[in-house]
């Protein structure tokens, strides 16, 4: 007997014998395979029809879905550092989602292949471009590739560490595991914040290497974490329909997940508005050009769509506790937010696509043309811009997002089927099962 044997936590079997601890052998295999095949087919179709545009479309989907995995890692660490009791059962689902990070590293390959197209502006800079030349210490291919390795090494190591320790606790029931994880979560969150910030700088912000915004990493994280909650709610609801997690993730937990999703709708707005207002106020040409690009080519309509779809509508919709405690309305909110998350990624990435040859002169011409159109206002302007957007958008800009989304669903199910559905012997499991909102 080990020294800790006398202080093991009560198991799920003792606390709630009616909860199914593990997915039945072979169950959900069809769904897992179906999700992976559908995802692969959509990405393959996008690749076959997209041409050079495919790389940008893929980046849209990739950054959107990667954010969900990173959100899962963040959620797990926050649960540990706060020693939260309510979310023990939700945490296992998050652990299964972040278990897809090694696959996400593999799925980075198309971005590496399309490197020259995506990051054209700084890979092949204009020799007279002093701004980009000044950033060459950071924006060069060798360091860029090294950073990809570093980011994924950090994320995969942390995801592996937290998930494995949690699964081991299922076996040994040692409460000391929880204490150790809460200590590791503190430096872990610091590493996470830095790595995600720089990854967002590298993979989205450097598409337009002239532009810079120190809050950019945070704006990316805010949307990603919101998408993680939307994804988790939908996954848990779906597993609940299949008879799993019943009694483990209850209406009380959905209520809390809904509150957090609502909170990060607001936080996304807060960070994005902070970025926008400072740039608007200071009015420096090298900063405002990024937003000027997003007023042209129909992107103004997507900006408006984000203001309403990513803030006003979900803010009003998710405010009531009845909406968050009702499975159908909460799921509708989650789906809406995943759709606008895709638009958000498009808004960040696509306006820089296909503008390889566009010099400053053409930019000026674009502004003049835009001024002529500006006579229209309100709904008419929105409709006109949205028409322009639809004309320019490729189906792959949605297809890759949906495809990678289903790949993540499949990878999550792969992990869900192999691990226990809830942390069987977490010391706070009883608290989680009996949790109630005031």
């Amino acid at each position: 007997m080990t020294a800790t044997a006398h202080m093991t936590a009560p198991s799920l079997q003792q606390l709630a014998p009616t909860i199914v601890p593990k997915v039945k052998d072979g169950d959900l295999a069809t769904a897992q395979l179906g999700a992976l095949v559908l995802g692969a087919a959509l990405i393959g179709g996008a690749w076959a029809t997209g041409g050079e545009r495919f790389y940008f479309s893929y980046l849209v989907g990739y950054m959107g879905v990667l954010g969900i995995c990173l959100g899962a890692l963040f959620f797990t660490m926050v649960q540990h550092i706060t020693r939260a009791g309510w979310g023990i059962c939700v945490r296992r689902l998050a652990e299964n989602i972040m278990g897809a990070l090694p696959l996400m590293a593999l799925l980075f390959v198309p971005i590496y292949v399309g490197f020259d197209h995506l990051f054209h502006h700084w890979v092949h800079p204009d020799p007279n471009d002093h701004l980009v030349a000044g950033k060459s210490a950071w924006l060069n291919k060798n360091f860029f590739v090294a950073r990809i390795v570093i980011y994924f090494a950090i994320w995969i190591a942390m995801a592996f560490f937290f998930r494995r320790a949690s699964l081991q606790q299922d076996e040994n029931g040692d409460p000391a595991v929880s204490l150790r994880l809460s200590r590791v979560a503190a430096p872990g969150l610091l590493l996470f914040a830095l790595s995600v910030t720089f990854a967002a700088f590298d993979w989205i912000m450097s598409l337009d290497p002239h532009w810079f915004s120190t809050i950019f990493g945070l704006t990316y994280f805010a949307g990603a974490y919101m998408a993680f909650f939307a994804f988790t709610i939908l996954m848990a609801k779906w597993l609940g329909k299949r008879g799993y997690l019943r009694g483990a993730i209850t209406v009380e937990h959905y209520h809390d997940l809904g509150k957090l999703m609502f909170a990060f709708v607001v936080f996304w707005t807060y960070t994005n508005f902070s970025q926008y207002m400072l740039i608007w106020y200071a009015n420096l040409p090298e900063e405002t050009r990024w937003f000027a690009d997003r007023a042209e080519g129909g992107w103004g309509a997507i900006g408006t769509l984000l203001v309403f779809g990513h803030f006003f509508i979900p803010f009003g919709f998710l405010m009531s506790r009845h909406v968050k405690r009702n499975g159908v309305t909460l799921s509708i909110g989650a789906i809406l937010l995943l759709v606008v998350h895709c638009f958000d990624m498009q808004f960040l990435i696509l306006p820089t696509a296909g503008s390889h040859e566009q010099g400053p002169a053409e930019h000026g011409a674009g502004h003049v043309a835009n001024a002529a159109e500006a006579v229209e206002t309100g709904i008419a302007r929105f409709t006109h811009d949205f028409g322009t957007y639809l004309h320019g958008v490729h189906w792959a800009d949605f297809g890759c997002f949906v495809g990678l989304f289903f790949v993540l669903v499949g990878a999550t199910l792969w992990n869900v089927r192999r691990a226990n559905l809830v942390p069987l012997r977490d010391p706070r499991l009883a608290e989680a099962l009996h949790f109630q909102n005031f």
Partner: protein
Amino acid sequence: MTNNTKWGVVAEFDSAASIYHAAEKVTHHGYTRVDAHTPFPVHGLDRALRQGPSPLGWIVVCCGATGICLAQLMMWWMNGHDYVFWVSGKTPYAWPSTIPITFECMVLLSGFGAVFGMFGLNRLPRLHHPIFRHSTIWRATDDRFFLSIEATDPKFDSRETVRFLESIGGKHVEIVEE
């Protein structure tokens, strides 16, 4: 005592669990004008007492909406109408510049709504309450849990109600004068 009208009956309980079960029995028995006084929030006690949802949320929403409107009205009047002043080429009363102040006014009035709305719903401030006449009520802020049934309850009967509270485990069951 100048006036001998009864306010209600107050009973003391030992634990959160015992007051929870007592609350269930009291409401099950048909009492409606009931309340609990505990040293800390007890989960589910409001449901056991069959308390309706608080209207405070609606008060806060209305106050927040008022804050938004007042802030916009103020800035439209001052910056866009009464004293138009161009600063660094920005349109007077441009929407991005109004957001922080609108947000702050919404938070301020929502906060007022929450605090003073709670005061109003609880009929605060007041200097004294009949329940303080109960002999051990001071322990409600320490280690005891109290259940009260008011005399205005249609089922209230001074002898019957006292006996009922004693039968469900209440100690120091006392009739409290107005």
